[in-house]
């Protein structure tokens, strides 16, 4: 009876996906976007939705684009360090990703706001352009709007020192 063969077929299909998945290491995107121009966006500002945050705001300086969400545990972990970075003069833009506005505003109010501005991407469309797999992710974007570095997971002083700081050409006020 053919119906008893259905489970075996399902496993085979799953197996095919997994085999494909093994070749697509999620970290792959990390290198694919590096060196490419940052995908353009123009999104509402979290705090004042009538204004827009767009890629052109980032031009002319080394800046970080940090993908965050209030449901993200690891974002809390890195938040303190983001505040330190901001204090030391690193411009940080936020991409508030797949979140809810009231929760996000409360988060910034309570934990502190390290961002110059947070762009709102609740549908996740821009996240797809940036290959965002999950929050937190952080991009280092150069003055010419090239993506110089991408980090999956929370930032820490060690990661900053090894992956980010060396890429930033001596700019006053930045490490």
């Amino acid at each position, binding site marked *: *009876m053919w119906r*008893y*063969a259905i*489970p*075996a077929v399902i*496993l*085979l299909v*799953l*197996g095919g*996906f*997994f*085999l*494909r*998945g*093994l*070749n*697509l*290491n*999620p*970290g792959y*995107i990390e290198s694919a976007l590096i060196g490419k121009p940052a995908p353009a966006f123009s999104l509402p500002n979290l705090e004042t939705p009538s204004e827009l945050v767009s890629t052109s705001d980032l031009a002319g300086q080394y800046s970080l684009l940090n993908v965050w*969400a209030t*449901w993200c*545990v*690891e974002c*809390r972990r890195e*938040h*303190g360090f983001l*505040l330190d970075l901001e204090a030391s003069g690193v411009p940080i833009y936020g991409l508030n990703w*797949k979140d809810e506005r009231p929760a996000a505003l409360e988060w910034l109010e*309570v*934990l*502190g706001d390290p961002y110059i501005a947070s762009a709102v991407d609740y549908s*996740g469309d821009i*996240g*797809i352009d940036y*290959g*965002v*797999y*999950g929050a937190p992710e952080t991009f280092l974007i150069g003055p010419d709007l090239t993506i110089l570095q991408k980090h*999956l*997971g929370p930032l*820490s002083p*060690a990661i900053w020192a090894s992956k980010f700081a060396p890429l930033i050409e001596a700019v006053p006020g930045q490490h």
Partner: protein
Amino acid sequence: MIPEIGQFALVLAVCLSICQAVFPLAGAATGRNDWMMLARSAATGQFVFVAIAYVVLTYAFLNDDFSVLFVANHSNSQLPVAYKFAAVWGGHEGSLLLWSLMLALWTLAVAHGSRSQPLEFSSRVLGVLGIVSAGVLLFTLLTSNPFDRLLPGAIDGADLNPLLQDPAMVAHPPMLYVGYVGLAVPFAFAVAALLTGKLDKNWARWTRPWTIGAWIFLTGGIALGSWWAYYELGWGGWWFWDPVENASFMPWLMATALIHSLAVTERRGIFKSWTVLLAIAAFSLSLLGTFLVRSGVLISVHAFASDPTRGLFILMLLLVISGGALVLYAFRAGNLESEGGFKLVSRESFLLANNILLVVATIAVLFGTLYPLFLDAMGLGQISVGPPYFNMIFLLPMLPLALLLGLGMHSAWQKMVPGALFSRLRWIGIATLVVAIAYPLVSFGSTSVLTIIGLAAGIWVTLSSLIEPISRWFNSRAVRLTRAQWGMFIAHLGVGMFIVGATVTSAFNIESEEAVRSGERWEVAGYEIEFRGLSQVEGPNFMADEGEFELRRDGEFVATLRPQQRQYLVQTNPMTEAAIDDRWYRHIFVALGDPLGDGAWSVRVQYKPMISFIWWGCIVMALGGLLAATDQRYREPVKQRKERKSPGNAAVAQGST
């Protein structure tokens, strides 16, 4: 020299596991008794050598042998001794060795607990377990050898991940692995039944205690993991739908379905091919979980160092073991005939509904977990699926399940008069509604539709689990409940407690995050909290800022809480140690955040009503499982059982009305 002994023991264990796989299966196929008899000795020998390898690795940890790469990567001379034992499973290679050890232990238990079963059957079971052992041991030896050397040796080790340096984390992985791996036993029973072509009530009776045993450990392991996440991640959440959590939760759902379907097969001789399929699926999902965690196809907080060769090896293992079983199933399942039918309103129907709903929930979780991978594989970009999807998609099948659970427990096998069921349960139904509506209004002064539904589900399950044991308590003439029935009621009581806890916590959790200085006071959920100051504390391998907080209610002292922010000396990432004032009806959870400068600290305080019911519910569930698994009828040989007409084993409903 000593680590090489471990490696050699591992090689011998592989050889023995291959013997354990080949000879008994070939012997059973050709009717050679001497080959079949080999199974038990091979299983014992395999256990001995895996145990030697494990002890050798532990010895390397205790002696700070940093010329062993795995030890150098996961330990440090300053690591407290208890955590050196735990560090053995603190990384991929060692945890795989633990996996093998658990499997060898289950195999040993099966080998010696299956003497009353026909030789042909028990040797097939051990043969199948031998295949699984051989696969996992080869995987360890070929791709993830824990005894690999680092020459010259390191001066000191890189230390165990601080997140894992915690008592709950010491117990969580072994417990979870015992459960994961234990599902190999019902899997082997199912494959052996397919090979033999015979699946009767005895088969279900043999399989059931093993399945419940594995399920108990899985329940405990998942609960411990959730408890750990709750207080160690410093966030106060207890379930995150992280891919790795899902990987342990899916086998649990399947094992739960399997236990219920086995009950039907054992009592009534039906649902046979379905039961076999569930047994195969439960273990396949364990293997799938292992694949997801260790291959790096999904990103998770738990992910082990990923390596494509390892991923490929486990994938092949999954395809050979589960694929082989499913192909066998495709050819043989049609031969498993049912021995009877049942009416629409009967315990069988309710258990069938239970199975369908649990399987639907598993598929929903599986789909959510793999969805990012599917899209990625089809070139549609990368996404992640968040808790909102899982919460909704998981609750949809769970609510009807809770309703049917109460009905099913009080139904008779084969046929139940709907009117009788109604008259038995109507008072419980009314009481449920009254409490579900009144309790949140009285205790918290507000409510919502979802809260009422969730509470009603939990209270309904709780009350319908309690009513039977209580009414028998007061009726001295009633037939006593068997241990299995006690197990059923208690396990379901645990489910009810869990639902109540999860609902109330989610609905009435109060969270506050403040920037405070020493001496400041503020109020959360009617409690007054005072920040009394900060001190430096030194642990064996960490430094910590420890805050002192005094908790008062209506001016009266409640507790002093001391949360810490730790900085481990070797791996320098900061760790939050929350402090919890733990009462059965609520937790006050205080976590120290980051220093904000000028002596101000961010402090997170959470009031979590009824949250302990979540874990107590799991403990009660596991306790129910323990009672059910140790029922009289699983402990006596087949012959005696036939002579004894099982008393009081009829459906509860028939016995007491």
